[in-house]
């Protein structure tokens, strides 16, 4: 069932359009036209397939496409930007499930060599159940359920069962083995995702994203379809690279993320006698308005408190009324998925040329009069550079402490996700602004308006 030459060329064109779509994301100016190229590529490949293939039930196929299109479009238009990670997780899962079902359909019809179809089945099934767990964790505030006793033993056994079943399937045991294989894969995907903690979510979402791509490539091999292979490989590479960038930004390895779960809470060092200085929003406003340069460091706490609009209002008034230079500094793992903070700030009308990545802005903290850290903690912890016993040791952090004055908007002095105490809280140039991120920032804005 080789595809004809015309179809081959059209698929090749579609593959090129997908590459250009991703290439467009190199800069915000070209990104939107890139997205349009991606849409054209998809329309082209679906149109060409339908044109050259004898479909039995055009009506049913069209109905399925329309129904999916409506569901997808409505959910995409309705989703809140803070809930994006859940939506991406859900989409990864659906893509994986689609691949798994196609793999099953092929095995049912005995149209393909066993191995290739089973790759789609297993990797797709993994993406589906893993994403389901990731979705539930993101939706339910992350820590509602997680590790259980003997989890590593259980995961080891289920992995062995998976390998065994796969071998049985490849031995030509056919349909029954395939169904069992899918079931065990689903359990396996859920089991390996369950222990993953909240701050590791960006890594998991990226891995699942990659899986949905690899699954599509597997299906491509089983159907000898070039556009599936090309696109699956590109998506797989994309998710894998993102996962690698995230693990590097957290100084973690895949092994730690998947098997160790969250950092052990016992590592937290509660040092009782140190005192942190508390300030009120008026003091903060006074220092900020007299500054020449202010760097704002947002974390997921900002999004959780829906404080991004207040932060933008603060940045705008500092810039327009007081002539302060205001910049935003983003750590690669701030937020719950790669690039999440950038989208949230963009939604609050912060222009992207005021937003900088860690390596581009880290040197500027030394020349900043004030840093305003809102809803972030571990990504500013200087112990990551100096203290070998810290669970964060080795992780690249924002050099917030080099600013003349550091404001921390936080509810309490509690350690962050890593469980590590942040020595910056007790530094001489740090002022804690206790309270809800949104309320505190709004009070700062009010004070700035009045004076």
């Amino acid at each position, binding site marked *: 069932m080789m595809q004809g030459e015309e179809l081959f060329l059209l698929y090749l064109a579609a593959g090129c359009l997908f590459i250009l779509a991703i290439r467009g994301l190199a800069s915000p100016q070209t990104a939107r036209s890139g997205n349009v190229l991606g849409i054209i590529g998809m329309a082209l490949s679906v149109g060409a397939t339908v044109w050259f293939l004898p479909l039995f039930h055009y009506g049913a196929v069209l109905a399925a496409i329309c129904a999916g299109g409506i569901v997808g479009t409505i959910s*995409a238009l309705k989703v809140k930007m803070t809930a994006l990670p859940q939506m991406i997780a859900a989409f990864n899962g659906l893509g994986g499930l689609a691949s798994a079902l196609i793999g099953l359909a092929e095995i049912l019809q005995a149209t393909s060599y066993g191995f290739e179809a089973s790759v789609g089945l297993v990797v797709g099934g993994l993406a589906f159940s893993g994403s389901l767990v990731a979705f539930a964790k993101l939706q339910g505030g992350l820590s509602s359920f997680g590790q259980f006793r003997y989890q590593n033993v259980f995961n080891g056994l289920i992995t062995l069962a998976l390998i065994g079943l796969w071998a049985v399937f490849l031995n030509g045991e056919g349909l029954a083995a395939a169904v069992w294989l899918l079931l065990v894969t689903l359990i396996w995907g859920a089991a390996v995702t369950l222990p993953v903690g909240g701050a590791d979510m960006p890594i998991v979402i990226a891995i699942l994203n990659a899986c949905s*791509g690899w699954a*599509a490539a597997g299906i491509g091999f089983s159907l000898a*379809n070039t556009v599936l292979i090309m*696109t699956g*490989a590109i*998506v797989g590479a994309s998710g894998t690279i*993102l996962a690698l960038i995230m693990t590097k930004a957290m100084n973690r390895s895949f092994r730690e993320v998947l098997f160790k779960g969250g950092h052990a809470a016992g590592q937290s060092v509660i040092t009782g006698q140190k005192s942190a200085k508390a300030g009120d929003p008026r003091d903060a406003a006074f220092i900020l308005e007299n500054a020449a340069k202010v760097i704002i460091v947002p974390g997921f706490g900002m999004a959780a408190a829906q404080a991004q609009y207040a932060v933008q209002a603060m940045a705008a008034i500092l810039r327009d009324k007081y002539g302060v230079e205001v910049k935003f500094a983003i750590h690669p793992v701030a937020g719950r998925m790669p690039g999440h903070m*950038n989208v949230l700030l963009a939604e609050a009308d912060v222009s992207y040329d005021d937003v900088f990545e860690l390596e581009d802005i880290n040197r500027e903290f030394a020349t900043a009069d004030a840093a305003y850290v809102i809803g972030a903690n571990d990504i500013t912890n200087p112990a990551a550079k100096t203290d070998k016993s810290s669970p964060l040791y080795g992780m690249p952090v924002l050099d917030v402490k080099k600013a003349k004055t550091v404001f921390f908007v936080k509810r309490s002095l509690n350690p962050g996700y890593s469980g590590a105490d942040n020595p910056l809280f007790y530094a001489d140039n740090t002022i804690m602004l206790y309270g809800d991120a949104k309320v505190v920032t709004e009070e700062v804005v009010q004070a700035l308006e009045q004076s």
Partner: protein
Amino acid sequence: MTFLYLLAIFILSCFIGYFVVRGVTPALHSPLMSVSNAISGIVIIGALLTASYVRVPMAEFLSLAAIFLAAVNVFGGFAVSQRMLSLFKKREKK
């Protein structure tokens, strides 16, 4: 031979994917994920193929279900990408 030829396409695509994704600005990593969500909906082609030579009714049902799921991915992925990307603005010069 067919397999080797497909393998060549696969491996070269991995390299292209690697270099293209490396060039994506970190600020757009979220849209990158949603765009790749959308284009991984390309499995819809696979589902169309399995639907086209159905011999088993159950396989047809599975194919249609897969078409539905992949369509959610395609439409949802592109729509949410477009929505996200429209948020990224340059500061208006005053």
